């Protein structure tokens, strides 16, 4: 790609990324924030392309735009309207700002002042194949651990997010017992004794029949 096109791409994508990220800070609606996050992520994916990392770029779009943002929207939709507020907490914003500015100064200084000794070789070609091969040759252990981590996260997320009515009842009863200072036995909640009405012997019922 020519130098002009590269400049154009870099600066517009950088503006998109930083602009999207800044709008997350500003926007007061959480759903807007997620939409801005998506814009920012797309900008990052574009930047990956300018760095000739096309596999990573596509994965970025696939995972962040296609999955993570949707997951966030889902979580937001599962909590009620009042919780969709994205405002900053005034108490922490000030100190956070100070810390962040310090971090920013430090990183800028490091980024600009260090001699990175960067070299510019030809970009990798056929990255998908190369990454795949090195994943199952050199990085097989991290790869397997990553798989286990993802499985654990899957199971954990399901276990956390899932609470059926019975669990809720047990939980509520245990808290109530704690408040009342009683002993608590979950069995009473899960399998309460049947009311007398149901266990009593029923009188023989005359066969009901519609008049014809």
């Amino acid at each position, binding site marked *: *790609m*020519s130098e*002009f*096109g590269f400049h154009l791409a870099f600066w517009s994508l950088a503006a998109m990324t930083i602009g999207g990220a800044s709008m997350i800070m500003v926007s007061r*609606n959480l*759903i*807007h924030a997620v*939409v801005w996050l*998506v814009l920012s992520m797309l900008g990052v994916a574009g930047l990956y392309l300018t760095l000739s990392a*096309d*596999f990573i770029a*596509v*994965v970025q*779009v*696939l995972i962040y*735009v*296609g*999955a993570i*943002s*949707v997951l966030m*929207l*889902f979580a937001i*939709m599962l909590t009620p309207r009042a919780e969709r507020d994205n405002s900053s907490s005034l108490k922490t914003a000030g100190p956070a700002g100070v810390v962040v500015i310090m971090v920013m100064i430090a990183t800028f200084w490091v980024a600009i002042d260090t001699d990175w000794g960067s070299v510019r070789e030809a970009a990798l070609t*056929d*990255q*998908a194949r190369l990454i795949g091969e090195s994943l199952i040759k050199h990085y097989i252990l991290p790869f397997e651990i990553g798989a286990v981590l993802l499985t654990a996260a899957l199971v954990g997320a399901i276990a956390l997010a899932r609470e059926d009515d019975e669990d809720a009842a047990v939980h509520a009863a245990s808290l109530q017992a704690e408040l009342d200072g009683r002993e608590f036995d979950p069995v009473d909640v899960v399998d309460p004794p049947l009311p007398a009405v149901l266990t009593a012997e029923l009188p023989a019922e005359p*066969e*009901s*029949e*519609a*008049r*014809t």
Partner: protein
Amino acid sequence: MTELAGLSGILGAWYDFRDLNNLQRLITEWIADWGPDWLASIVTGLLGALGILGVIGPTLLVLIWVERKVIARFQQRYGPNRVGPKGLLQPVADAVKLILKEQLAPRAADKLIFFLPPVLIFIPGILIWGVLPFGPRMSVADLNVGVLFLLAVSGTAVLVIFMAGWSSNNKYALLGAMRAVAMSISYEVPMVLALLTLVVFSGTMSINGIVEWQQQEDVIFILLFPLTALVFFFAASAELNRTPADISEAESEIVAGYHTEYSGMRFGLFYAVELGNTLVVSGFIATFFLGGWWMWGLDEWVPSWIILLAKTGAVYFLLIWTRGTLPRLRVDQLMSLCWKALVPATLLFVVVAFVQRTLLISEGWDTTIALPIMAVINIGLSLGAIMLFARVARPADLRRPARIRMAGAEIGGLRAARSVAARSEEPQFQVGGD
């Protein structure tokens, strides 16, 4: 003078219409002769985009007519036949009507997010065409991660649908959006697994590479992995919101789902993209499973893009057919179908593909003999899997047949009902059951 030479080169090659890429390459080379690099790449990109838009636009107008006519024939009607010859101009009239209609926005809508989706939905809708190979060298971008690109781009449409449904501030729209999101997250899994099977077996992630593999081995993937093709077809029709999986815009339940509140051309844009997606997905099904632009040597005689279009048309007709015939599944049924039947089935075939590919490579088997044998094995496995799932995944409700009995003389209440039910004779008819 070089400019003239370039032009004459274009003119000299015009007749080679089998490969439209020649034209584009010539134009780029001509520009590169006198202009800067970036102009050439911009012009190439623009030409590709314009080419796609120029093809899709008119095709969509014809397709609307085709779909309406075909559905009308299924339903014993004539279909559009008033505007233009054979009603061919009906879609144009509809488009004009949609453009002239007032565009309403609900007062409580989230204005910015409400206005964006009809435009944004176009981006994945157009981008996805970029990797569809119309011929050996005829795709706008032949990425070596083409399959991933396809999945990534189709995944982004969900977000737009969610934005549309949420911002409308309408309960139908929100329900439709939530359904659409849940559906497409779920159905992406069997889709990815189905494509993974092909990628594993052909050893390439380039879409054109997959077609070339089929050409080289003289086999189409639907023969090797029939169940995977079926799952991909169903998952694709679910992602496209078409019956029997159109729950996100189920008319009888939630009116029009996420685009309930969109009127005029805003709705028209959603509709156009939906139709375009249907076409492109038919194209991808044809490419992945039916050999794309290749057809046992016929591509030597017929332009490759015509072969692809013919196959695409066949798949598209199949999509119309299912739409015209089948009722809609319920949300939970679609989910359980996806997770309990489609995902295990595709997973099974991913493993099968791994094993067979390894056998082919490490044992060095002759593919002309090994592939037919594998095809037979896989077809058998598919039938077995379908029968197994039909037995296992069938809800208990459906195991018992539904019976209709005839009460001849008995009339009355519960007692008569019992006597009819207790009669031992066969019911007049009985449907379903194991």
